[in-house]
């Protein structure tokens, strides 16, 4: 229950409601144990976007700077949505993969732990 106390009615919309994105939705991407990128990055994409396109363009553009990127065994990778393990199909869209507005998708690459195993 809210603890907010006010002198007058207080009702303001969320700044980042999905309606504000003209048919697109926010998606956050993180590569676990590769903290060189400091924080996840955010995209606004149509829900019909193929998940594979995100890997091949956005993730590759950003993450290929890391020497581990070329080492990834894509058959062994795992994914989380927030803290929940999920199976993602690169040939399906965001919507068909069950990825909604403001979901955080986390890539786990077993055996790859960043520069000198530091997590970076």
């Amino acid at each position, binding site marked *: 229950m*809210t*603890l*907010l*106390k*006010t*002198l007058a009615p*207080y*009702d*303001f*919309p*969320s*700044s*980042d*409601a*999905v309606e*504000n*994105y*003209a048919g*697109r939705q*926010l998606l*956050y991407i*993180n590569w*676990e*144990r590769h*903290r*060189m*990128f*400091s*924080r*996840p*990055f*955010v*995209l*606004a994409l149509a829900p019909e976007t193929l998940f594979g396109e995100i890997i091949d363009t*956005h993730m590759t*553009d*950003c993450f290929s*700077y890391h020497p581990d990127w070329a080492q990834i065994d894509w058959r062994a990778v795992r994914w989380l949505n*927030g*803290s929940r393990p999920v199976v993602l199909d690169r040939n399906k869209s965001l919507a068909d993969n069950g990825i*909604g*507005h*403001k*979901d*955080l998708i*986390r890539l786990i690459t077993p055996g790859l*732990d*960043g*520069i*000198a195993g*530091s*997590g*970076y």
Partner: protein
Amino acid sequence: MDMKVSKKLGLKERYTMMTRDLAWDTTFQPMDKVFPQVGYEGIKIHDWNAWEDPFRLTMDAYWKYQAEKERKLYAILDAFNQNNGHLSVTDARYINVLKLFLGSTPPLELMAARGFSMVARQMVGAGPRVACMMQSVDEYRHFQTQIHSISNYNRFYNGLDEFAHQQSRMWYLSDGKSFFDDAITAGPFEFMVAIGFAFEYVLTNILFVPFISGAAYNGDMAAMTVGFSAQSDEARHMTLGLECIKFMLEQDPDNLPIVQRWIDKWTWRGTRKLASVGMMMDYMLPKRIMSFKEAWEIYFEQNGTALFTDLARYGVKVPKCFDQTIEEKEHITHQSWIGFYMKPDATPFHTWMPQPEELDWLSEKYPNTFDTYYRPVYEHWIAQEKAGKRFNNKTQPMNCQVCVSTIKFNEPGDPMEMCFRETVYKGEKFHFCSDHCREIFEDEPEKYVQTFISSHAALQGKCEPEGTDVNAHDYRPGARMHAYWRMDKRASGDFNGSEDQKNFAKWRAQATQN
């Protein structure tokens, strides 16, 4: 005619006449209608007269002291400027400390000024009202003197001129802005706990001492003097914050849980805000005074423990985040510097990789963490830089919905894992950097759903520079952030190769050689 010569008033009498005697209870309107803000937060006050005025300063004496300070300050600033004092700093990397610190602080001082003048109007007792009014004037003075201090540097170095425009737009300034926006939109008592207590009392030392001594140690007499001049007001500010806490706790036992929640909330928010100050100490000062970790131990752990031992008699407990901040002191400055280094196009100040002896200093100061987690990636980046591949992460950040820091901190207990927290409110997902920020959100979600996150706003098309044609076929929301931020290209990028670096070397050579 006989003239009765009255005796000069004693200090106490004079004080009473100049403060409490000037106040009255309203009769045309009921007091609670004139002062509605003191009631709605749930704080119960039974006797406003019980407020102890911690410093018996009258307004006339206040003006006299402050004028004297100003005279001294501007004499030093003028001398510094006339003698090209900027060339006596250790090296041009130091200027970036001013760009970061003095580029982000003045607007916050202004918010503090606004906040305290609001609270001065909202409080019932004359004692707190006069004290808040003085603090408001102090904060306004800090705002002005800091700008005067940067104005001289602005004549010579890039990136200092758009801080006011950038304050409410720039990604890395959003944490400070949100801190003060949150405080000023709370009621007067929460504002006092947020700024007067948590910020001024618990955290101000860690903000000012490293900045002032860092400036002094690196040859910047101007910034040092501005810092000292502000710091001399802080004693009064701290006393006011502490007095307000004690007053609330003495007035009614029901106030304790409310005050405790505010202490927990604002100590955490302040801690997050100070991550970049710590980064300045560990990475940006060419000559370092002490590590952030050491400063945290002295000013937060030791002083904080003493303070909360003192407050324990009122039932107040140490802030909930205390243990987490102790674990984090080994990490946050490194994680912050990585966050800035990897984004060279997106700050109006330069970043760089530490030099070999600086890496060794960090190893020595952070024996538990630096070599294991941070040195390897720095050495990798240094090699990349030599190969002409300086890191530049072009993506847009994810931010905490409450503190608006980029989400870059580690899971408590595991420095290799990121810390993520989320919650769903009215069908929408919200993300946080920590348990503490999530709790703050969940206590008052109506407030934090409105947070301004620049990367989100950009993707909505709300961050376009003037003249952007949103109907153009190639229009992409957020593609022109640099123009929107009014980023001076010369001011961004790596320090090595920058115009500031070249100019400083050239001017110093002219000043010291024939």
